[in-house]
């Protein structure tokens, strides 16, 4: 996938390294740094004007907010028209962020949870700048925080605060938040699921299917630490599970091969599910610059925007286009 290695089309020199980024303590500043760097890195945003386009006039009906009346049209035609324009969002994005304890693992100076939070904050900030409404749902083995999608600066603050909470919980339940968001969000929108997906996948497919069936656009970010990807340990040691506390004596030299195989199988299974449901799947290592993630995300979105077809089996050819 595109997220696994630096995108050659992207000017890598202008990227901020995650290590440097994570040294900024404020999450909002971090998000802003990524987004602004991203803006300056791009000559032209492919999404510019995407959400500020004038859509339509609609006749005023009692109950509408009189603030939205187009007084110029009224002056000309003496009729009340409501103009749907800038401040009316056209996208509801829900960020589903995993805050289970397995996300608290990190071998590159920051944890997966910090990376995931920064990613979520970046997306939120970016969408906020575009005028989209952003909601948040954090979860571990249960749902922890839920903020409905809104577009307000104060809402963004709350969102950042919720993201800054430390990772906790003893397990990762991917099904409950998906079901919950399916229940809560009636209008179709964008659902972004950020997790390490280090949990059984057996019931994940049905939940994702439900979500996709509600015509939501779903994007999945799988955040993994480089140490998890390659099991880069040298010494034999007793390993403790961050979530369950289970301990196991493991000699990395002996176990690495089988581990990598199993992890790859797991990731492949996850990708298969996503492909099957037309869901964008991005795997991110925590030492990768966040701009790449953002770029991948936007690129996939653009592809998606061009795509007329909803969930179909022809997704494979489109993802192939996206990869080019």
């Amino acid at each position: 996938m595109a997220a696994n290695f630096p995108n050659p089309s992207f000017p890598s020199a202008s990227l901020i390294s995650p290590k440097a980024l994570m040294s900024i303590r404020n999450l909002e500043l971090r998000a802003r740094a990524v987004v602004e760097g991203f803006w300056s890195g791009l000559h032209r945003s492919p999404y510019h004007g995407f959400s500020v386009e004038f859509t339509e006039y609609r006749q005023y009906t009692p109950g509408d907010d009189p603030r939205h009346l187009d007084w110029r049209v009224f002056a000309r035609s003496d009729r009340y028209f409501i103009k749907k324009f800038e401040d009316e969002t056209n996208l509801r994005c829900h960020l589903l962020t995993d805050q289970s304890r397995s996300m608290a693992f990190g071998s590159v100076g920051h944890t997966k949870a910090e990376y995931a939070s920064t990613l979520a904050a970046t997306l939120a900030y970016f969408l906020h700048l575009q005028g989209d409404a952003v909601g948040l749902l954090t979860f571990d083995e249960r749902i922890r925080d839920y903020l409905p999608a809104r577009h307000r600066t104060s809402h963004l603050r709350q969102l950042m605060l919720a993201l800054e909470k430390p990772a906790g919980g003893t397990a990762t339940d991917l099904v409950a938040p998906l079901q919950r968001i399916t229940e809560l969000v009636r209008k179709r929108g964008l659902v972004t699921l950020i997790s390490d997906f280090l949990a059984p996948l057996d019931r994940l497919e049905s939940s994702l299917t439900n979500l996709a069936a509600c015509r939501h656009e779903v994007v999945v970010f799988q955040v993994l630490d480089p140490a998890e990807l390659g099991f880069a340990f040298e010494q034999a040691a007793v390993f403790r599970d961050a979530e369950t506390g289970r301990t196991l004596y493991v000699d990395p030299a002996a176990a690495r091969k089988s581990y990598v195989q199993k992890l790859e199988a797991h990731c492949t299974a996850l990708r298969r599910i996503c492909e099957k449901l037309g869901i964008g799947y991005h795997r991110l290592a925590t030492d990768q610059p966040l701009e790449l993630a953002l770029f991948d995300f936007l690129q996939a979105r653009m592809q998606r925007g061009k795509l007329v077809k909803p969930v179909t089996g022809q997704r494979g050819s489109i993802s192939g286009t996206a990869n080019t």
Partner: protein
Amino acid sequence: MSFLAPLFLLGGLAVALPVVFHLIRRTTREQTLFSSLMFLQPSPPRLTRKSRLEHLLLLLLRCLALALLAFGFARPFLKQTAANDHDAAAAKRIVVLLDSSASMRREGLWAAARQQAEAVLRRVTPADQVAVFTFDRQVTPLVNFDQWKAMPAGDRVGQALNRIGEASPGWSATLLGNALVRAAEELADDDTTKAGGPRQIVLISDIQEGSRLDQLQAYEWPKGIQVLVEPVKARAASNASVQLVTESADADRNADPVVRVRVSNAADAKREKFQVGWTRREAPGFVGAAVDVYVPPGQSRVVPVPVPTNAPGLNQIILRGDDEPFDNSVFVLPPEAAHINVLYLGAEAAEDTHQPLFFLRRALPETRRQAIQVMARPPAAALAASEAEAAALFVVTDALPDDRAALLREQMLAGKIVIFAPKSAASAPTLARLLGRESVAMEEAKPDKYAMLADIDFRHPLFAPFADPRFSDFTKIHFWKYRKVDAAGIPDGRVVAKFDSGAPALLDAPVGKGRLLVLTSGWQPEDSQLALSSKFVPLLYSLLELTGGLTTAPSQYLVGDSVALTGLSGNATTLRIPDGTTVPLAVGSTNFSQTLQPGIYTITSAPVPKQFAVNLDPAETRTMPLSVDELEHRGAPVTATVLVDTATDAKHQAILQSSEAESRQKLWRWLIAAALAVLLGESALAGWTARRSIALEGTPA
């Protein structure tokens, strides 16, 4: 090289352990946090390859320490030297100590002891040197080393056995300590001529509880002398005994005569009921009524046995109901009172309660042991020479006529003692006569309040019993008046006690063989409180002992004791010993030490036949076996308790020789020391390695 405990060599297999431990890579105890273990499988502890054995030197040291320990525990010894030992064993020097005390008279013991002695002698090689001693109170050499050497080599054992066959157990107590010391000394002396070679004492004894080991305590046991104990065991375990209980000296003379005996029963005895009564040697059976005694095992009872009034001449009490007869009789003679005559020369009436005579009579009562007769004579009355001869002590309190004084002086010159306690200074001429001088200055002295005895010479026999600080306080005795005697006027006199004024209170002046004691104050209440004090009677008895009339003869003699023969004329003396034979005594001998058997000994040649009873030592009747450890505690190194078993004798001897060789070489000590040294080195090396690896980890790559 051979091993005493070869099974311990299996411990050497433990060498495999460090090898395995070195092959196992050390696992860290630290835990590494990981996000999820869902893709991980537990790894088995990994063995490094053989070529990757870590810390080879450490491994070698650990293996070496274990191997040395196993080797040490196997108790190795050098066969080569063991063979030499065998040659050396041929040149062993052995003292065979054969117990011949009274307890060996028990059934079967002496035969068993002789058998064991024979077994020991049969084991002896021609090169060995052997001495055979029997012991009880004394150590009697049957064969000493010189005699052994002098015998023809092939006949030594036979001759020694003959001599053992001639010996028999006596009646004496067991002085085991003494015998062991004597044997050790014999071996130690012998060692001056011959260097090296093992030296052994083979002790053949019943090692009874009553054996005396005191002498071992003060003896520093010579190095290299071993004691091999060959115990003999009595067939009948139970044994009861009877012993005479010493009569107190002041027992009531008029009470019904009884003799008190103690009946003791051994702890492992099976019998509890006994009978005690008088008997005659010639006719077995009780004379008069026997006393039934119930003594539980391990206890003793004191039983009064009434003396039958109608059967004179009884002197033996026996115990019935016991298996072992050797300690079942005790010989008793009625105590003989000592007769002492005290001649009192004073003017007062005997009934006058304020005068010295009254107190003197009261202080010397007649008891069973002593009959002291105080004969009072007025100074002026005639005194027969025989009367003076019969008196042991003269007490003079008044001035005497010259001829009386001269008579007393003669008696003193012959060795008698006169105590002169003048009632007044007017007796000064009498004192001068007694001393054989022209005159002695004497004047009456009357202190303001009272005088006390201040300076007493407690080394003098009169005051010696008071030398203990508990009894030496004489300040409670007040003297109201005294006669001041000029001590300088009696040049050879010794002032034994002084008053606080410095005037002599008691003067001891030797006169010829006898002595004159001058007490410058009387004991009567008019002069002092002396007669009323607790010191008066002991002082008088000291005085009587000084005369030699009051002897503290023991109430009974034990077998082997030396008996002082007093009151014998200078003629040839004969003595009848209990078995009826008559023993002549050398002229002028004052002691008889051949009391070899219990019974009544009679001096037949004396004008009045004198008798004394000799009994078995009470310690000898304690026949319970003594723990061999007791010998060890007293310093004698007991190497083995040997029980003769001819079938396993050769094998046993081989084992014995091996253990001897091993205990002499003591190679295991060096091996353990080497193991400790290796372990120390290992610790140092391991510490150094650990520090170095930490230092290496600490340095940045």
